[in-house]
């Protein structure tokens, strides 16, 4: 009975899914390199682990598939020569089927396709030699054990339980027990003969021993899965032994030295022969525990709450009489430092390796290559570079888009490549590396490179810019046009990556994380997409401003300075854009209230301006009041707020009120300055 109500079902699903995900990339590696034994072992182990747990839960279909796949894996490992693609395909099919099974565990009826798949796996395995038979050393021809003829002979008969799942192994235990009590002269059938038989076997043995029959019987009955035991003194000594020279003293010749018997003080012979196993210790990762990602998120939220609480406490302390406040201040400060450290530690616990993004890619690229009829080699560098989980999660789609894009548009087909004097196999390199507080992710192909002229034409055609502006762009700047919506490097939309759709989405996503996307390309040599990402996105220093009675946060890293200016004297209320002089430069100024369609509650006269800088472009927005600064934990916007241009996130203030965080780039676009003031950087990100 499948037990979908098992208390560890979710644990099983999580563990199995993880194994299967890793399995996918390991299977891809099978095709790429002459597989090392360790790779086979890892693949076998994963399949095996899924099978074992599934068996305990009674998920027979999973067990059937995993078992059949495991058999095939075991034989493939022993196979000489190249692994066929069909064989790997079959293992992929098995992995896919297992993933599917695990996703919908509650489905009751037998799936037709499972039966066929198990059948195909079994057929493929049967075509290969069984390593269990060939790898096990051929047993030496049985040496007839000899025993002191004066010892009594016992006829022993043992019936194994019908439910015995491994009669060969059980018989081996019986054999060991018998040998521990005397000299085992005969045993029929042998453990090897009982292997892979059904339970219920009867074993007959002849034992030369001084041990009493009752004692032998009791020792055997005490063994698990032994149902019936008969021990009798054998009628007569065997005729074969007559006339032989006096046998040597009874030594258990059959048992090799490493089969150290229970209770016998066996000198550790083997220790000196086997290499010291110490180095395995070094291979082991640090001890870790499995934590639900959600639990870490909650922990982070709570750490942030503590920080907010402390901020409120500080505010409250300010209103106390000074002699009281002075004493509190030191304590609050210490508390604040601890809370900040706690927050930092939770943040770093949330760091996730880049590999968690890339482990599914080898499989995706393999399938893609087959579909596109190209050969593609995927190389992932820096898999252990760590990023915040928020970044990792947000990066999944953009990254797979860039990979698809590179495979489809970037890399040429093998014939074209060979004509161009390149290796037929295209290379796709994914790199992650840490640079100070940033992580740089690159998706590089060695394909045809981008066509700057085509990009210019497309940009003009899609009315993103004038012909003059396009012509003024350098080739390097023109490549960045690919990030514009509606601009693609190819005219034919393809099934795989569409019509360049999504490169603008890639840029938007990266920028919403506080990162930057750019393109490098060399015609004929290839294209590299460079994503510069912040190590963590969640904490931000905000400048709090008030407009129309509401508070907003402005990311401080975008704020150049704040200033006060009286524009109303020159243009009256409701101005759209004026200019003010900042550091000797004329900067355009906009009303934040006006941009958001809010009423401005500030009286006429001088008012504060926040001067921001985006891509080297400076602009100023007026606000009603500057309120202060706060370090805050940013959270992504939820619908429909996420569609509001000019907003990038939301946070909760110390007083518990939500605060919307402005997106300076979005504001620049709202102001209409971002596309027109400077052509080259403006092309980027204009939506």
């Amino acid at each position, binding site marked *: 009975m499948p037990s979908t109500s098992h*208390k*560890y079902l979710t*644990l*099983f699903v999580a*563990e199995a899914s993880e194994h299967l995900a890793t399995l996918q990339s390991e299977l891809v590696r099978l095709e790429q390199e002459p597989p090392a034994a360790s790779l086979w072992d*890892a693949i*076998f*182990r994963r399949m*095996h*682990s899924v*099978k*074992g*747990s599934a*068996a*305990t*839960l*009674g998920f027979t279909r999973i*067990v059937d598939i995993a*078992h059949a796949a*495991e*058999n095939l894996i075991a034989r493939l490992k022993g196979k000489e020569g190249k692994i066929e693609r069909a064989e790997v395909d079959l293992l992929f099919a098995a992995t896919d089927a297992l993933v599917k099974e695990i996703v919908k565990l509650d489905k009751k009826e037998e799936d037709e396709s499972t039966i066929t798949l198990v059948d195909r796996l079994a057929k493929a395995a049967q075509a290969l030699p069984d390593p*269990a038979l060939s790898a*096990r050393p051929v047993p030496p021809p049985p040496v007839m054990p000899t025993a002191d003829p004066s010892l009594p002979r016992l006829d022993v008969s043992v019936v194994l339980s019908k439910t015995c*799942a*491994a009669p*060969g*192994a059980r018989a*081996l*235990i019986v054999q*060991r027990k018998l040998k521990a009590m005397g000299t085992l002269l005969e045993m029929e059938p042998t*453990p090897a003969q009982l*292997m*892979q038989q059904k339970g219920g076997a009867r074993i007959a043995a002849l034992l030369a021993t001084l041990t009493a029959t009752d004692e032998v019987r009791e020792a055997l009955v*005490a*063994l*698990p*899965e032994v149902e019936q035991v008969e021990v009798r003194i054998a009628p007569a000594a065997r005729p074969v032994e007559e006339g032989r020279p006096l046998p040597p003293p009874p030594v258990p010749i059959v048992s*090799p030295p*490493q*089969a*150290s018997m*229970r*209770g*016998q*003080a*066996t000198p*550790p012979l*083997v*220790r000196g022969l086997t290499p010291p*196993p110490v180095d*395995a*210790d070094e*291979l*082991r990762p640090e001890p870790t525990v*499995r934590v639900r990602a959600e639990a870490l998120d909650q922990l982070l939220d709570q750490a942030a709450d503590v920080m907010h609480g402390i901020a409120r406490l500080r505010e409250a302390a300010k209103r106390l009489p000074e002699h009281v406040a002075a004493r509190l201040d030191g304590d609050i400060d210490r508390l604040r430092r601890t809370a900040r450290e706690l927050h930092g530690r939770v943040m770093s616990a949330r760091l996730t390796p880049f590999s968690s993004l890339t482990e599914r890619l080898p499989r995706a690229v393999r399938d893609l290559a087959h579909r596109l009829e190209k050969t593609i080699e995927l190389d992932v560098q820096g898999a252990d570079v760590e990023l915040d989980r928020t970044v990792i999660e947000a990066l999944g789609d953009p990254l797979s888009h860039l990979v698809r894009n590179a495979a489809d548009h970037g890399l040429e087909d093998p014939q074209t490549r060979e004509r161009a004097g390149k290796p037929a196999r295209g290379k796709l390199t994914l790199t992650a590396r840490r640079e100070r507080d940033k992580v740089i992710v690159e998706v590089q192909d060695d394909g045809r490179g981008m066509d700057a002229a085509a990009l210019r034409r497309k940009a003009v055609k899609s009315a993103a810019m004038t012909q003059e502006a396009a012509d003024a762009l350098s080739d390097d700047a023109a490549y960045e046009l690919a990030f514009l919506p509606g601009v693609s490097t190819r005219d034919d939309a393809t099934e795989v990556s569409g019509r360049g759709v999504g490169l603008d989405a890639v840029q938007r996503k990266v920028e919403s994380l506080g990162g930057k996307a750019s393109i490098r390309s060399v015609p004929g040599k290839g294209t590299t997409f460079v994503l510069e990402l912040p190590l963590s996105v969640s904490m931000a220093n905000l400048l709090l401003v008030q407009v129309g009675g509401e508070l907003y946060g402005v990311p401080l890293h975008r704020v150049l300075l704040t200033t006060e200016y009286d524009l109303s004297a020159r243009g009256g209320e409701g101005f759209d854009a004026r200019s003010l002089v900042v550091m000797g430069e004329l900067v355009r100024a906009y009303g934040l209230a006006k941009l958001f369609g809010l009423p401005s509650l500030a009286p006429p006269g001088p008012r504060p301006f926040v001067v921001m800088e985006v891509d080297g472009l400076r602009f100023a927005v007026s606000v009603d009041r500057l309120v202060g600064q706060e370090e805050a934990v940013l959270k992504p916007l939820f619908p429909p707020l996420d569609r509001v241009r000019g907003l990038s996130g939301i946070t909760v203030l110390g007083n518990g009120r939500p605060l919307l965080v402005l997106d300076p780039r979005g504001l620049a676009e709202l102001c209409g300055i971002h596309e027109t003031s400077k052509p080259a950087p403006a092309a980027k990100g204009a939506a």
Partner: protein
Amino acid sequence: MPKRVLIVDDALFMRNTLRDIFSSAGFTVAGEADDGVQAVNLFRELKPDLVTMDIVMPYKSGIDATREIVQLDPSAVVVMCSALGQESLVMEAIEAGATDFIVKPFRGEDVLAVVKKVLGE
């Protein structure tokens, strides 16, 4: 004195399942290991009355771990936990000194029956 058991399996799912089986039968779970290296270390440290040992594990297989444990303590009681179709590995483990074995899938009572027999209860 409740018997103390060391559970060795690389799947947390299996460890939890075995832990429940042993706890409900009055055993003390002295420790859990998720690979063979850890198993040997924990055995040395905890000196449990009983070890349940998975066979296929990373870093060091259950067979090698069993061999080392039995060298450390020839009277160690090690019960292999194997999956169906692993009979030759189980036999190898027995030759390496494993006391007995159970075959997955198992029910709680199957595990306890074997364990009680090998502990002489």
